[in-house]
C-alpha cells in the first residue's frame, strides 16, 4: 500500500511538467525548495531543539552566493554552484552556531532572529556586490553547454537535488548522527555522560542545517530569477518554522508535508495578504494544542498497532 502510494507520487512527480500549467510547475518547484529548507531547519530545531527564526538569512546567503558564482564563476555547472552555495552557507552556520552554544531557548531564538536582520542589512550595504535594494539578476543554471531556462528544466533540477537531500537526511537521521542530535534534545546531561560531545554536535547541526538551506537558496535563486533583500524577510523565516511545527518536529517526511501545505496555502492566500499572519498563527496555536507532534506525529499515532 505504502509502496503503491509512493509510486503514484513518483510518477506524477516526474510527469508534472507535462501535465500541469507553467505556473503550477513553478509552484511545485517552490514546494521542493521549501521542503529542503524545512528538512534543514528540522535538523537544527526538531532534532537538537535550537529553534531558529533566522533561516531566511541562510536562504539569502545561498541564493546570493549562487547568483554571484553565476555572474563571476565562468559558467560553473549547477551541481558545483549549489555545492558552493551550501558550503559557504554552512561556514556562516558554524560562525553563528559557535556563539549560540552559550545561549539557550528564547535567547538562542532571539540571536537567530537578529541574524536574519543582519543578513538583510548586509545585502543592502554590500551593494557593489549585491546591487542592494535594486535587485540582482541571477544568470540561468548551467549544465555544461545547456542553460536551464524553462520552468520544466528547472523543475527537474530541483526534483533531483531534493531527492538526493531527502535520502541523505533519512540516512543521517536514522543512524548515529541522528541519535546524537536527538539525545541532545532529550537531555544534554545524559548525552554528555554517554560520551556525546554536545558542543560539537550542536555546531554540526548548525552547519548541516545551513548547508541544506544554502543549497535550497541556490535553487530558489534560479527559480525566481531576480534577488532582492525583501524576499528574505523575517516572515519567510516564520513560514519555515510553521512548516516544521505543522509537519512534525524531528521528522523528515513531516518537513516535506509541512513545506507542501504552507507553500500551497501561501500561494492560495496571495490575495489575502493581511490575513496571512492570522491564519498561520491559528495553525501554529492549533498544532501546539491539538497536534504536538505535527502531521507526522498524528500519522504515527494513526498507524501505530
Amino acid at each position, binding site marked *: 500500500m505504502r509502496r503503491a502510494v509512493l509510486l503514484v507520487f513518483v510518477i506524477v512527480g516526474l510527469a508534472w511538467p507535462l501535465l500541469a500549467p507553467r505556473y503550477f510547475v513553478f509552484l511545485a518547484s517552490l514546494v521542493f525548495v521549501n521542503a529542503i529548507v524545512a528538512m534543514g531547519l528540522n535538523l537544527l530545531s526538531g532534532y537538537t531543539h535550537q529553534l531558529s527564526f533566522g533561516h531566511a538569512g541562510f536562504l539569502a546567503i545561498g541564493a546570493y552566493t549562487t547568483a554571484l558564482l553565476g555572474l563571476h564563476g565562468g559558467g560553473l555547472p549547477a551541481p558545483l554552484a549549489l555545492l558552493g552555495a551550501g558550503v559557504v552557507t554552512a561556514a556562516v552556520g558554524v560562525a553563528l552556531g559557535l556563539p549560540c552554544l552559550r545561549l539557550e531557548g528564547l535567547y538562542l531564538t532571539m540571536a537567530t532572529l537578529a541574524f536574519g536582520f543582519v543578513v538583510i542589512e548586509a545585502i543592502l550595504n554590500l551593494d557593489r556586490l549585491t546591487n542592494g535594494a535594486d535587485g540582482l539578476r541571477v544568470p540561468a543554471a548551467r549544465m555544461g553547454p545547456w542553460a536551464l531556462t524553462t520552468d520544466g528544466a528547472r523543475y527537474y533540477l530541483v526534483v533531483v537535488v531534493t531527492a538526493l537531500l531527502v535520502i*541523505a*537526511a533519512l*540516512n*543521517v537521521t536514522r*543512524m*548515529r*548522527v*541522528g*541519535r*546524537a542530535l*536527538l*539525545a541532545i534534545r*532529550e*537531555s544534554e*546531561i*545524559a*548525552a*554528555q*555522560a*554517554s*560520551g*556525546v*560531545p*554536545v558542543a560539537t554536535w550542536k555546531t*554540526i547541526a548548525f552547519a*548541516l542545517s545551513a548547508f541544506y538551506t544554502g543549497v535550497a537558496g541556490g535553487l530558489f535563486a534560479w527559480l525566481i530569477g531576480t534577488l532582492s533583500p525583501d524576499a528574505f524577510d523575517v516572515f519567510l523565516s516564520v513560514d519555515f518554522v510553521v512548516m516544521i511545527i505543522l509537519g512534525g518536529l524531528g521528522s523528515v517526511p513531516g518537513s516535506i508535508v509541512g513545506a507542501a501545505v504552507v507553500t500551497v496555502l501561501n500561494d492560495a492566500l496571495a490575495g489575502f495578504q493581511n490575513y496571512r499572519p492570522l491564519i498561520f498563527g491559528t495553525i501554529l496555536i492549533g498544532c501546539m494544542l491539538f497536534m504536538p507532534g505535527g502531521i507526522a506525529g498524528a500519522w504515527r499515532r494513526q498507524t501505530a498497532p
Partner: protein
Amino acid sequence: MTGLLSVSGLSINFGGLAALSDLDLEVAEGAIVALIGPNGAGKTTVFNVLSGLYHPSRGRVTFRGDDLLALAPYAIARRGVARTFQNTEVFRRLSALDNVLIGRHAHIKGGVLGGALALPRVRSEEARARRDARALLDLVGLGDSANVEAASLPLGHQKRLEMARALAAEPTLLLLDEPAGGLNPTETRELMGLIRRLRDERKLTILLVEHDMQLVMGISDRVAVLDHGRKIAEGKPGEISRDPAVIEAYLGAPE
C-alpha cells in the same frame, strides 16, 4: 588490587554551603564500593564531580592516572567512567533501543558524510551496534521493551535502561546512583545479582550510592559514609554497621 580511582582533598561549596569538605576516597580495581549517608550528605555531588558536571573548589581526582578534573564530561565518559542518575535521565521520547545505542556513540564510527551516503562500512557498524544494544537490553531484562518509548517504562525499568545505556559505553568504572530506588525486595535481589555479575564477568569496578541497606551490606566490598559533606567512616560492611559515628549520623545523637 591497584587503585583505579583516587579522590583526595575534594571540597566544593555551593553559595557558602560546603557540600563536600576534604573528601578522600580510593576505589580499587574490581571492587564494589558503596557511598552511603543521610539525605543531603553529598553523595550525588561526588558523582557529579566524577562525571565532570561540577567543578570542585579544591582537590584532585585521578582515574587510571589521568586527571579527571581537566576533562569535559563526554571525555570522561570516553575514558571509561559511565554513570546512571538518581532521578533517571533517560532520553524520554526515544525508544529503549535508541537509548542504549546512544550509549554506544563513542564506539560507533560514521559521521555526517558516511551516514548520509549510508556507506557499507557505516551500515555494518550500525547493524553490529544494534545487536550489541539488544544483548544489553536482554542482560538487564528489558529485551521485550526494545521499541517502547523510554518515558512510558515504569521507573524501575528506566533505572535498568540507564544501566544498559551506561554499560553500552564499555566503562571500566560504573557509577550507580541509587540503583535500587523504587524497587521491591525481589527486584532488589535481582539487581544485586546483576551488579555482582557485572563485576565478576565484565571485570567492572562499581561505585554506588544507595539507601537500601540490604543491597549495600549484601554486595559491597567497602562502604564509605558521608555526613554533611565529610567522610565519617570507611571500612568493610560489618565494621560500618557497628560504627558509633555512623549510627549517630543515621539515628541522631542519644539524648
